[in-house]
Every structure is written in structure tokens, then in C-alpha cells.
């Protein structure tokens, strides 16, 4: 369909489900609990309503996602976003790539890295630490993983310690998960289309 966005962008698209999301009016108590729906909070995205079809997975995934991306210590927030972006570019998840490129740009207060990646692709010129992080995330995201000892050696040379390497593994792997939901269960479409 012509309104589906296929090119990487930092402008976060609307996500349009390919299956029918759960209807809040007929949701079960377990679904309402996992959706955190309260009388004062009835705004739930179509994405989360879609995932509510598998309520047990939704309930465990949200806290796990937040811990991997936001728990303190270890790898910086921006570098976790770069790991997420590497995975999302391999899997061509335009929606996830947009959200996490936008967050990277916000944290870094610079669009330079994500501009280069979206313009020149995975081989874009990056400073050495970003290069090692991005290359590792890309290699780990292939099926089967193409990450090897040389990638880990490059991360160590770039100054990452074991705790930081683990956080990078977790953020890239997490987007192997997120991409297979976002990119499989729906389409990224222009916001105007969604509103109209």
C-alpha cells in the first residue's frame, strides 16, 4: 500500500496493525491489568492492544524492556539506543528504527550519527566507539548471529568493559524481539493517513 513507509526516518510513523487489536470494551480482567488501564488512564496504543492478545507475554515483557533500556549503570543510554538501532536496521523495522534513532538524537542532542546511518547505511562513517558498538549489534542481529571474537575484541579496544558489553548484547537482542512484533504485526504509515 502506498501509505506504508519503507525508508528509514527519524519521524516516528503511526503503527497500523495487520490483525485486529483487543477491544478495550470486551477485554478480560487479566488484559486490563496488563494494559494498566485505570479509570484515569484509558489511552492505550493499538500496538499494546494488539499485544494484549498474548497477555502473559505482554505482562512480563514491559518491565524487562524498561530494565534493559533504562536501568542505571553500565552502557550509556545513547549507546543502548545505538544497539537497538543496529538490530532494527538489520531487520528493516522502520518503526523501531525511527523511535530509537529519534531517542539517540535527543540524548546526544545531535542528529549527526543517525543522519549518517540513514543516509549511508550500515557502512556509514562513525567514530571508533560507535563503530564497534554498531557493528556488534548488526552482526548479532543476523540469523544465525555473525558476531565473533573480533567484534568483542573491537568493543574492548574501544573501551567497553564487561558490564557495558552485556548491556549492548541485551539491547541489541531485545530489538530482535521488538522488531519481530512491530515489523511483523503491523505497518509503519504516515501520521496524516492515520489521522484522516
Amino acid at each position: 500500500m502506498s501509505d506504508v513507509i519503507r525508508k528509514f526516518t527519524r519521524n516516528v510513523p503511526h503503527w497500523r496493525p495487520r490483525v485486529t487489536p483487543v477491544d478495550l470494551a470486551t477485554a478480560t480482567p487479566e488484559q486490563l491489568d496488563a494494559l494498566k488501564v485505570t479509570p484515569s488512564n484509558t489511552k492505550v496504543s493499538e500496538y499494546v492492544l494488539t499485544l494484549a492478545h498474548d497477555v502473559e507475554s505482554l505482562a512480563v515483557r514491559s518491565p524487562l524492556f524498561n530494565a534493559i533500556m533504562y536501568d542505571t549503570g553500565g552502557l550509556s543510554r545513547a549507546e543502548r539506543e545505538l544497539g537497538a538501532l543496529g538490530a532494527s536496521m538489520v531487520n528493516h523495522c522502520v518503526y523501531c528504527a525511527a523511535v530509537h534513532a529519534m531517542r539517540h538524537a535527543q540524548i546526544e542532542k545531535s542528529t549527526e550519527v543517525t543522519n549518517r546511518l540513514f543516509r549511508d547505511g550500515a557502512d556509514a562513517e562513525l567514530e571508533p566507539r560507535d563503530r564497534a558498538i554498531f557493528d556488534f549489534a548488526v552482526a548479532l542481529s543476523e540469523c544465525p548471529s555473525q558476531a565473533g571474537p573480533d567484534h568483542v575484541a573491537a568493543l574492548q579496544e574501544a573501551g567497553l568493559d564487561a558490564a557495558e558489553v552485556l548491556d549492548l548484547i541485551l539491547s541489541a537482542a531485545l530489538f530482535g524481539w521488538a522488531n519481530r512484533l512491530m515489523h511483523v504485526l503491523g505497518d509503519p504509515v504516515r501520521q496524516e493517513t492515520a489521522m484522516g
Partner: protein
Amino acid sequence: MAPDTTATRFAGVAAGTSAADAVAGRAKIFEMTQAAEDAVLRPKDAGAWPHTLRAALAARIAALNEEHDLAAHFAADAGADATLADPAQGGAVPVMAAVVAFMDRVAADTRHVTADDVKDLQAAGVADADIVRLAELNAFLAYQIRVIAGLRLMGGMPA
């Protein structure tokens, strides 16, 4: 101490290594990862996909990722569905043929998944809720397998 989970076991994280210390520092994440495995392999509400089929599909995805020990671990619970644990085997009935075609593509060629892949499942009679259940199983395995692959590489880092 690093928690004992499927991920740490199959990555071979040994006590006293820098990998084990890093895992211990993120213990909560590894515990939640194990809870997520239970949610996709042994949910209370399994929908159309019983535990044996989920185990077979998990083994199949592990095999597609060349994680053969993990594949054997999942396949041990596949019971009557064990043939589907082998990526060379297709589904014997049309709905299972559609399910394994979808699961293989989502696992191994994610970037090329399109709306038609979802439509094919719907045309085979799979309910939308069961399509989401398949995607969650597949997506979780993609994560767990990459955590294992990454952690195994960390085994080579100095303590």
C-alpha cells in the same frame, strides 16, 4: 551470584568470569528473561498452540540459528509435534504448513516479512490472537538466542 537460567546455562557462563560478574549485576533482567520464556512456552492460556507444539517451534528456531544444544533442549518437550523441530520438515496439514512457513520467515528473514505473511495465516484459518501468540514465541526466541550467542562470546573476555 549469576542466576541459573536457560540463557546462562546454554551460553556456558562459568563462575568467577567477567561474564558471570556482569550477569550478576543484571540478575533481575535474567530472572525476567526466564519468566518470559515460561510465558511463551508454558502459558496458562495457550490458545491454539499446546506446549508440545511451542517446544517444537522453539527448537526449530534454535536450529535455524545453529544453536543445536538449545534446540535439543526444547525438542525434548515436543512430544507428538517433534517432527516440526526439524527445519527440514514442513507441516503435514495446511494450517501447520502455514504456521511453519511463517515462523521460519519471521525467525530467519525478518526484514522481508510483509502483510501477506500475516494474510496467509489468516487464510489458513489462524485467529488473530493466535497469530500474536506465534509472533511472541518467535520474537522471544530471537532475543534469548542472541543473549546466549553474545554471552558465549563474553566467555573469551579477561576476568
